[in-house]
């Protein structure tokens, strides 16, 4: 039997069986998104703390919607809020949230390892919603779900990841995940954004500087967001990036004809991706968004639902009292 998941801190520590379990459990929730009445009472009375120490719109809305559709309430902590600006430490902030008795906590933080740090100190299930340059596990899971749906299976694809791989937690989580399912991963981007160390994340990963070569034979192309603050002269001008690495419809023809294009969003049309590709039939961006809800509902259901791990069953408590 599958060991009960206590936290989802990263993909690296999950095994293939656990990943497939999460993907399988996301299927009923995918179907649920098509229901006319999108409100369950499954987690009624449960509270999920959304602790976003780093600005986020899409991921935060996705988790908040997932919780709401399961019937759970949410407490929101946002980067813009004042206590963080007043200099309170991470542990003090999350202990304050814990004192309000949530049943689980979703954390995004600019420092790699922050969710793990919190998980070690709090007696609550923790879900990592992105930590520094480390991992973004729910993004990799929703990407995997999209790949499995579109291409019929998850195993053995040629996957090309384009862009700023060095700073991308999305790239790392995807490499860990797809590497466990036999993907042949090709990284492509400016040399300063793909250091050799990245090859160690998934077996057989190669780095290819020329986009034309990197796209050849690709079954899945993951286009990463290019953060505007990292694009500036003299290091790298936007025109240079567009010329060298934008996924254009011409370049997409070099990949397999049925290649799937993914992007974690927010997508900047005209920079890392050509609008024609973004709106084309090979692009799975909007499915990724819907699948994100399904994956997050499945995780919230399994992690925050049910009795706390150590809590005695109410029935057991009664029978003990009778002893």
């Amino acid at each position, binding site marked *: 039997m599958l060991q009960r998941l206590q936290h989802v801190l990263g993909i690296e520590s999950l095994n293939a069986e656990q990943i497939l379990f999460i993907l399988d459990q996301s299927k*009923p929730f995918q179907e649920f998104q098509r229901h006319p009445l999108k409100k369950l009472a499954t987690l009624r009375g449960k509270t999920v703390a959304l602790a976003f120490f780093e600005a986020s719109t899409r991921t935060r809305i996705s988790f908040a919607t997932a919780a709401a559709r399961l019937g759970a309430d949410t407490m929101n902590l946002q980067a813009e809020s004042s206590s963080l600006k007043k200099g309170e430490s991470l542990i003090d902030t999350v202990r304050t949230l814990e004192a309000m008795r949530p049943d689980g906590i979703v954390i995004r933080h600019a420092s790699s390892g922050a969710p793990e740090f919190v998980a070690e100190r709090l007696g609550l299930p923790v879900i990592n919603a992105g930590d520094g340059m480390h991992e973004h596990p729910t993004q990799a899971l929703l990407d995997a779900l999209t790949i499995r749906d579109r291409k019929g299976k998850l195993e053995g694809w040629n996957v090309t990841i384009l862009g700023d791989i060095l700073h991308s937690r999305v790239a790392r989580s995807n490499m860990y995940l797809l590497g466990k399912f036999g993907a042949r991963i090709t990284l492509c981007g400016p040399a300063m954004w793909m250091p050799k160390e990245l090859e160690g994340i998934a077996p057989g990963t190669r780095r290819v500087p020329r986009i034309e070569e990197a796209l050849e034979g690709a079954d899945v192309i993951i286009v990463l967001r290019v953060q505007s603050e990292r694009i500036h002269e003299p290091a790298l001008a936007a025109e240079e990036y567009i010329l060298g690495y934008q996924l254009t419809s011409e370049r997409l023809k070099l990949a397999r004809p049925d290649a799937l294009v993914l992007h974690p969003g927010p997508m900047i049309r005209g920079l890392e991706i050509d609008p024609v590709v973004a709106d084309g039939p090979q692009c799975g961006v909007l499915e990724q968004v819907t699948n994100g809800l399904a994956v997050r509902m499945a995780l919230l259901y399994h992690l925050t639902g049910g009795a706390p791990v150590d809590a005695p069953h109410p029935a057991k408590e009664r029978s003990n009292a009778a002893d």
Partner: protein
Amino acid sequence: MRVIEKRQLLSAEEIGRTLQRLAHEIVEKSGGTKDLGLIGVRRRGVPLAERLAKIIGSTARAEVPVGTLDITLYRDDLSTIGPQPVVQSTEIAFPVDDRDLVVVDDVLYTGRTARAAMNGLFDLGRPRRIRLCVLIDRGHRELPIESAFVGRTVETSDTEIVEVRLREIDGEERVVLVDRVA
């Protein structure tokens, strides 16, 4: 704790005959098959609903749509049990609005599954009517729920379990009454 088999409630042949009768009753009491839809509750309600639809198809010469309902997300005991039960898909490929639905399950016991099934169906639309059809009604209701179509009513004690074994799932076909002994 182990279980011992006390007696057989239905043989394979009796299950077949019971389903024939239930199929007839459903058509008769519905005044035909118009708007009728069968909803099998996972797991063993699913093959039973499919068999009923097949019988109705051949005797009343009408195709009755069959859907599959997973009630896991609608259970009322989720906050008190340990690891969360695995969720399975609900597959109802026809609109339930204004349908005359018959929810099919193997055993009616506390009534909590039927309550959960109704909640699940309401999330999909507004059926005109929902009735229940079970192979075995074993009593001990905890909710005001009754079944319109019952294969057999059996008196049971709290410790007993009615086990419905169907060839599609269990590889054998019979209904037995078992008891838990310490």
